């Protein structure tokens, strides 16, 4: 049963990340996802200190706010200080991340939070944090409920705002010409990324969540020319990585989150070579055939 719980949690995390990752890579904002996942660290620590618990709602709020603040800072540096986007991202997230690291080291004794856990996560502990009903029935791990709710919220967000997200991603100038606010949808998407990152960090950590944001979406981009299929395939790639990664980790007796991220990279490499449309293998084959 523990195997199932861990794989289910990882799949829920991977699917949430993959869906948002599709929008991030098409907006050329993959590194903004990276930035947010690191910059929410001080938000997590502060929310932790104020609430004194791992109460997920407080954490989500705290980190969600910091995530939106990060995107705001990046745009501010880019537009007002005329800094290149990549430099603006680099300055912002390393700074916020560093503040988070300092905060953790100061309060290390007081809070039940350590750097390893924040950076790499520990998905193997998921089955230990259970929800027990008042009558004593085991309702399953808490992480599954949290990630399940997050995934449902993201699916609702994407289905409801599909037109607007699609249009502001493809052609922001046209979107504003017909009266769709590009910045509103930008910040909504960034809030979704922040919330997902924070809720995922306990299981996969701040660094590996980036792999799940980008790699499955990039894999799907290579496999299809249809955006809706890209969303579906990205989830499939994420789930496949979770499943195979778990068994690889068990076999090697290594880090589960690490193995999942490593396999999402390998799945990307396979797509790169064997994709029917963009793949190197079939391109070579077509060249030889001609």
């Amino acid at each position, binding site marked *: 049963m523990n195997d199932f719980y861990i794989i289910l949690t990882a799949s829920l995390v991977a699917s949430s990340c993959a869906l948002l990752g599709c929008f991030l890579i098409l907006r050329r904002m993959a590194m903004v996802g990276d930035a947010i996942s690191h910059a929410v660290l001080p938000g997590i620590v502060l929310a932790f200190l104020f609430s004194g618990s791992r109460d997920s709602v407080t954490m989500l709020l705290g980190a969600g706010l910091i995530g939106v603040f990060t995107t705001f800072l990046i745009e501010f540096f880019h537009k007002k200080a005329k800094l290149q986007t990549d430099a603006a991202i680099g300055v912002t997230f390393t700074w916020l991340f560093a503040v988070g690291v300092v905060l953790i080291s100061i309060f290390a004794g007081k809070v039940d939070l350590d750097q390893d856990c924040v950076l790499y996560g520990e998905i193997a502990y998921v089955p230990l944090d259970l929800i027990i009903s008042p009558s004593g029935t085991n309702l399953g791990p808490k992480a599954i409920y949290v990630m399940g709710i997050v995934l449902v919220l993201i699916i609702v967000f994407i289905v409801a705002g599909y*037109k607007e997200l699609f249009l502001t991603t493809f052609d922001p100038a*046209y979107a504003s010409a017909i009266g769709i606010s590009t910045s509103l949808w930008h910040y909504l998407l960034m809030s979704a990324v922040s919330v997902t990152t924070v809720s995922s960090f306990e299981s996969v950590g701040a660094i590996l969540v980036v792999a799940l944001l980008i790699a499955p979406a990039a894999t799907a981009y290579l496999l299809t020319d249809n955006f809706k299929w890209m969303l579906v395939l990205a989830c499939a790639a994420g789930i496949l990585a979770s499943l195979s990664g778990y068994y690889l980790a068990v076999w090697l007796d290594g880090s589960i989150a690490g193995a999942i991220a490593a396999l999402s990279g390998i799945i990307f490499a396979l797509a790169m070579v064997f994709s029917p449309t963009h793949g190197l293998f079939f391109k070579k084959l077509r060249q030889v055939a001609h």
Partner: protein
Amino acid sequence: MAPDTNVPALEVHDLTVAFDRKPVLWNIDLVIPQGKIVGIIGPNGAGKSTLIKAVMGILPLSSGYTKLFDLPLNDVRGRISYVPQRESVDWDFPASVMDVVLMGRYSKLGLFKRPRKADRDAALDCLRKVGMEAFANRQISQLSGGQQQRTFLARALAQQADVYFMDEPFAGVDAATEKTIITLLRTMAQSGKTVIVVHHDLQSVTNYFDWVIMLNTRLIASGPTQETFTQDNLQETYGGKLTLLADVGDLIRRESFPQREKKL
């Protein structure tokens, strides 16, 4: 609202747009009647694209105001359409021609609603008008430059607007596409639509446009092509005035930073 054909399609008053305090457009005043094909011409960096973007509210105005059909922009959003420069989007985006043309229906649909069959039919009809109906399910990455431009045009048509702003629709397209576009623009103008086109090629101006706006940071002239597109105005728009205007810009910038002058 029954469109009153006597109301001007576009009025621009005292419009100034500046980036970093450097004016890109300076004190523009003009009125465009309905049902015209209007060409905006001027040298590179004259602010041609900036003018249409400012009118549509994509760029912030430093001063002045614009009105369409004698109403503020936000009351007439639904009657405005836009054809951006072809290079402004990523054509490797995972979308089909149909997906792009359907975007033209989004403003009519409103939030949370999906395109229905009626929208698809309307989109297909617009594709037919630009001669692209056979390409509806084609991947946009597989289109030629001319086909990309026709797709954008079909998207704007699908919006069924009254004013169309087009940013260099003739740039880098094949002769057949150019002909299709100009025929289409004439049909649109005949049915009372106003089409405002940023244009680069001076040779085709008299042939294509009823009305010209000649622009070089400030407005040189705006009026019916026959009276306005003259040697004198051309000289003034493109001639040796570039350096002078740059000097004026410099002076204005210095005046807005008096402290710096004192330090020197």
